[in-house]
């Protein structure tokens, strides 16, 4: 279960950012912003490696004391960043991958929506519901 989920456009501005309601939501925004540098590093490292299979899933970007940050970049250079609570050790790589796959599927649906202009912020209710299902439930 994620603590914060963000969708970043290829020009590096947020299309969608949602975190669990806490006192200091801004810290999640900062975390996501700094993780963009790590994403760029990973991408350029991948570019230099002679690996045939280039994955969209970027893996763990960096751990902080309370949280772990995971990244994923689509072929259209749109990035998904997910911040997960460190104490939740039950969350395995496969689960993170499947969460990103669901995000990608929903994002593709948003892209194909004729009422959506690419580059605008995402306001889709279906997308919201999907993200809600992936976030931690805070009572």
């Amino acid at each position, binding site marked *: 279960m994620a603590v914060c989920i963000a969708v970043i456009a*290829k020009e590096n501005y947020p299309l969608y950012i949602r975190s669990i309601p806490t006192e200091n939501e801004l810290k999640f925004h900062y975390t996501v912003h700094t993780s963009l540098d790590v994403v760029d590093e990973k991408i350029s490292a*991948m*570019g230099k490696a002679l690996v045939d*299979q*280039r*994955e*969209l899933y970027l893996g763990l970007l960096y751990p902080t004391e309370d949280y772990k940050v995971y990244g994923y*970049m*689509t*072929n*259209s*250079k749109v990035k998904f960043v997910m911040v997960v609570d460190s104490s939740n050790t039950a969350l395995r790589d496969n689960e993170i991958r499947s969460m990103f796959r669901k995000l*990608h*599927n929903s*994002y*593709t649906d948003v*892209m*194909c929506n*004729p009422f959506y202009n*690419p580059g605008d912020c995402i306001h889709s209710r279906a997308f919201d519901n999907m993200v809600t299902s992936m976030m931690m439930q805070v009572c």
Partner: protein
Amino acid sequence: MADSPLFQALHMEMAHALCEEQEKGLSVLEGVGFRVGQGLSERLTKEMPSFKDELDVLKFLCKDLWVTVFKKQVDNLRTNHQGTYMLQDNQFLLLTQLSNGKQYVEEAPKFLAFTCGLVRGALSNLGFDSTVTAEVPVMPSCKFQVVIQKS
């Protein structure tokens, strides 16, 4: 994807209806193709590993996108390795219903505008600004010229 006769028929009617007034019709049709290209490229690249470079993206266009929309691959791809690409399709799906002679060569741009937009939209979504033009040397073949802008 939908059956090709359905798409062909819809496209012909769309081209005809939008081009009643010549000046705006072609750019409206191209704009429609652009938006479709953006959505379609997003859907098709969902399962694919990330692209290495520009040439990889063009190959995706010529193979996967063309097969999905036109049921065949592009017959010939040429490049000058400096950002200009030429895609040649010898039996272009949207022109096969028009007669093979010279009679309708002037009408052909109407039926190519959507595809030019489609290519431009797909490239734009994958990160490349481009201009796409098309010409018909002999019906039903056509050549699309793609020039990628260097930014």
